[in-house]
């Protein structure tokens, strides 16, 4: 049975809070690069970047994407995954603070792959992690710096995030 855990307004409030926490942690918006992990991390990164920018008097904050498909450790065990574009600043990410953005933090394997992918793109000063939902069950020593909502879940349950840019509507569902 599916239950809606977050509505559009809840998601928006969570992203606003994450945006302010990022500004606070970074002591301002300078040197921030937000990279979403496709598919749904990408629009989340764009939304958070827009909020950071709006809260900082319009300072532009780069929002892009980091595809991890070719860095996964389970390629031969799964059907073919189609890659997505990686979009990073043309000046590179060296010396920046990269905030990785994903929709759901679960095993931590995606983030492990993202850290590998990131090191092939450049050498940021620091890497942070922001997720809309942390549902637990980590398989790697990875934790998020910014969490929209902690959702305790059973391992076999399915937590899915729908976003207007991808799915036409904003909500978080468990089932």
């Amino acid at each position, binding site marked *: 049975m599916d239950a809606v855990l977050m509505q559009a307004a809840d998601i928006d409030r969570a992203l606003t809070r994450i945006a302010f926490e990022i500004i606070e942690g970074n002591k301002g918006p300078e040197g921030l690069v937000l990279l979403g992990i496709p598919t749904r991390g990408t629009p989340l990164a764009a939304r958070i970047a827009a909020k950071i920018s709006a809260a900082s008097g319009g300072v532009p904050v780069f929002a892009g994407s980091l595809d991890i498909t070719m860095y996964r450790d389970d390629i031969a065990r799964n059907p*073919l995954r189609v890659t997505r574009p990686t979009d990073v600043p043309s000046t590179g990410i060296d010396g920046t603070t990269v905030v990785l953005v994903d929709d759901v933090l679960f095993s931590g394997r995606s983030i492990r792959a993202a850290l590998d992918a990131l090191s092939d793109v450049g050498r940021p000063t620091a890497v942070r992690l922001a997720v809309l939902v942390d549902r637990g069950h980590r398989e790697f020593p990875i934790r998020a710096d910014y969490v929209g909502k902690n959702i305790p879940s059973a391992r076999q349950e399915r937590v899915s995030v729908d976003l207007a840019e991808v799915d036409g509507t904003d909500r978080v569902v468990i089932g």
Partner: protein
Amino acid sequence: MKHLLSTADLTKAQAIELLDIAEDMAEVRTREVKKLPTLRGRTVVNLFFEDSTRTRTSFEAAAKRLSADVINFSAKGSSVSKGESLKDTAQTLEAIGADLVVVRHSASGAPQVLAQSGWIHSGVVNAGDGTHEHPTQALLDAFTIRRRIHGSSSRGADLQGLTVLIVGDIVHSRVARSNLWLLTTLGAHVTFAAPATLVPLAIDRWPVDVVHDFDEALAVKPDVVMMLRIQTERMRNAFFPTEREYARLWGLDQDRYRGLKPEALIMHPGPMNRGLEISSEAADSAQATVLEQVANGVSVRMAVLYALSALPDADILGRPE
């Protein structure tokens, strides 16, 4: 998709997904670290029974950029043909630990035999078999066309409505065959222009128009003109009287080049016979895509090697999440 043997096996969705993956592989070339860890620990064997520099090098570069180990096996001068010795060679390579075998063979159908005989379990990529097929060449041609036409909005796009003219030695050309199937699948309309002696017999059953006069074929102002190499190594009969006559009737010379519409693409799979099927003016023009085709070949082959390394028999349409 476990093997890539023929472009006739590809659905439109599969073809577009391969081209989309190739777009992302092309992006890797612009990075400081031009390597992906995707095929680490896997072995790709280039099994080449026929001379090839660019295709073998391209596959080798593609495999290495995906961090695979590459073994090059070339049977130059060997009398290996279909049958027992192909079997022994392939089984030896599998015993060495090949995960993917890239095979080029002068016998049409040799890659099918390898893939379907049960001799080996590795995936097989056809890198050109006789006069039959050269699927990765067609994929890189389609990729090159799509990039030139659609630019940065190429992802997901097909080639609907484009007119492609393929000119010259059709009968010996696996490039023409593979392109015909793939470009037609992607929505393009293909015309062959060739002297009657260089057109295969069964052509009336293929989804293609055939014109026996180059100038007549150019009069409709095609979007793409693909010149084929005259394959002297496969010609055991006189297919045309003299090279000079061929160049005059079927070469993309200065006048024909200048008569093309300005945005028309000029393609050639290489190596070019300058002055025979293509003039230097055409080959060196901004409309020519010859070097792009080579560069794109690596990206497309990376996409193919990656796609064949996913769970075999899986639907290529598997979603990314």
